[in-house]
């Protein structure tokens, strides 16, 4: 091969390499721009809000008015919109319990019941297994058959059960795991009982799992407007 042709060839290779290099740089830039743009900025709050629990008419819920162990419990959003929680009156004093997290082996102390007889508790109503919400996750009052399980009139002390994949939680003991496939308990909401017999949600329990699908309880949803959170019922 003549000398100048060899030179030509190496020059061409060099130029090609330069094209690849610059194109690579441009592609990297475009990828960075595109992917970062796809990740939506997260929305949420800096700290847990104090939200008074009110009815659909805007009037605060009086603790005594919450029906005892009903299969149609109150639901309220906390700490963000689209974060439903059960508001349960279990009809008896609920002590603080040590709840274990099967996923990590860790434990935490669940809040004790509040209200006139320490009978009211609240837990996230989003199943920790794969995120099913009411009506699939559902409270079965004591003595009722838990559909699709062997828990019947005599063996059901009032469980929360999810019909999506069969996870069962015990709200009498901090919504700890009774049956899988879930490996996380339902995170409890911290309530306070006010002197006028109303209830305020003030936070989530330290050490408990975060709400399903959330990196932190305070991000990943719109904050509720105002200083109240409204209860809703499920039909049926």
């Amino acid at each position, binding site marked *: 091969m003549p000398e100048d042709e060899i030179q030509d060839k190496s020059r061409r290779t060099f130029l090609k390499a330069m094209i690849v290099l610059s194109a690579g740089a441009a592609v990297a830039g475009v990828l960075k721009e595109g*992917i970062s743009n*796809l*990740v*939506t*900025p*997260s*929305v949420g709050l800096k700290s847990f809000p104090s939200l008074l629990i009110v009815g659909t008419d805007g009037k605060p819920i009086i603790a005594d008015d919450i029906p005892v162990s009903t299969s149609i419990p109150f639901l309220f959003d906390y700490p963000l*919109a*689209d974060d439903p929680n059960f508001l349960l009156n279990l009809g008896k004093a609920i002590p603080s319990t040590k709840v274990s997290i*099967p*996923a*990590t*082996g860790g434990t935490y102390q669940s809040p004790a019941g509040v209200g006139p007889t320490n009978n009211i508790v609240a837990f996230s109503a*989003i199943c920790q*297994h*794969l*995120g*099913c*919400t*009411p*009506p*699939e996750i*559902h409270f079965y009052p004591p003595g009722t058959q838990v*559909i*699709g399980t062997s828990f019947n009139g005599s063996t059901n002390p009032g469980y929360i059960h999810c*019909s*999506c*994949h*069969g996870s069962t939680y015990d709200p009498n003991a901090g919504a700890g795991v009774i049956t*899988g*496939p879930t*490996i996380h308990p339902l995170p409890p909401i911290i309530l306070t009982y006010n002197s006028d017999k109303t209830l305020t949600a003030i936070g989530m329990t330290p050490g408990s799992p975060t709400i*399903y*699908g*959330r*990196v932190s309880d305070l*991000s*990943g*949803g*719109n904050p509720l407007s105002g200083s109240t959170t409204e209860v809703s019922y*499920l*039909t*049926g």
Partner: protein
Amino acid sequence: MDKSLSEKVSELSKNAMDKVNGLVGVEGLHINELPLKRVPSYMRRKGGIWYWTGALISMAFVYQVVTGLILLLYYDPSNAYDGTEYLINSVPYGALILSTHLYGAYAMIVLIYVHMFRNYFTASYKKPRQLQWVLGVILLGLTLGVAYFGYSMTGDQLSLDATDVGRGIASSTPLLGTFLETIVFGNGTSAGTFMRMLGWHIIFTALIGLVFGLHFYLAESNTIMPSPEDTDHKFPAVDKEKPEYRPWWPYNFAFMTQLAMFSFGLIILIPSIIAVIPNIPVLFSPFPISPSQIPLVQSGVIPAYPPWFLLFLYKAVDFNIISYEVGPLHGLAPYFLISVIFGGIPAVYLLVLPFIDRSNDRHPLSRPIITGIGILMFIYLVILSAWGALLPGIPIQMTTVAVIFGVPFVIVMLGMWIISNEYKKGRLLITRNKLLTSYLAFLFIFIAAMLVFSQNVAAFMAKPDALNLVSTALTGGVTSFVAFGVMKSSDYTARLERETVVHAPFQISKNSGIIISSTLAFISVILTYIIFTLNPITQAMEFGIGLGIDLILAGIIIRVYRLVEYHE
């Protein structure tokens, strides 16, 4: 009298056609200059539908794009469920367009599986069609993706569950979890999530259009697969357009129009009929779950499961493959792993298949392992889907999983090994007697399996436990396998018959053609008149029945025309 009438009609129609030609000119369309390959006539005759599964998919896709764009005009991400209800209850023909969009998607997915398995067993992925096959697998993935997003957009209970499960799987991805979750589902607010899913639904559709364009271009360039005899039973199998192939216009054009009429007709007709049958089980209803059905969800009558095309993955999530104990894979990682095992591994296998299997023999028995894997994939897909539908959300122990997967594996692989050895030694001569024997054997086993299967189903309904489920799934799998065997062996027997005795092609006279098509056309005009009197909001689905029948009648008339005029 009759003859002169028929002559008059054909003269009239010829004059009309000539006028149209004079105005526009078929030549002016240059339709035969399109880079569309001409195909042999047998592909347009009875039974030729098997060669057109790709065309049927693209017709379903066209239907989806048209109805989807109409639905887009009504979609409101900040109010998804109310918007869906408004569309169904207050927009003229909203219910019809929404439900046929759902069934069009079903049709597309079923046809894609048919198309894929047909090309798998005929090894169409081999040289020179490797890239065409890879694009096809990508199209399968994109279609399942677009279907997932579409299904999650109605905002009813099942769609919310689907979103949550998707989030769970996305967020359990190691390292990239939260990153992936926000990319796919947005920032977690309800409106943000629906907006994202609408966006992905459209983006995926656009991608399907793009990849399909390439896939179709390659399909035309690589030509149809000629019959094995033409290529000496070897690859590369490329068709050389023979002089006797008829031009695209008007022969294939008429055939394609006929196929379009039938496929659009069925896509509209099936959900319309299902919608008007009283007391249809809510799972077969083409409409979203309404609030009045919430008690049924709660009591488990409506199980919270995904649409049938994702049931296989859903069931896999129930397998206790990874114990729920403390470990490096604790937390949500199992769902990610299971999605990888049951979704990712088959996908990668299909993608690399053309590069693993490079032999040049066309017979399925020359590659027993590949064919065996294909049969197993089909069996597992059916078993897992049926299992997911019958027993949703029951954790399954490893031993049960091993039995369900192991028994078909052993049977299929052993059977393939024996048959393939026979074939390779040249002992597997297909004779008429052997075919008849295997047909009878298949039929006998099929009847027996049906009996056992129905008993198992009854037992399972009465006592839904793991044992009854396993036996139901097993006999169900055997039943569908031998049903396929009955079909195939009867098909081969018939083909052998045809080779020995040449039947005269089916023909009808021009006059009977005229009588049939004028009767059908008359019926369709009357039918159209009737459905025009229906209420567009409350009787949209009844309208759909009429419209579907209209389209099918039009398809039949084209069929008659092709038979009479083209002798096809």
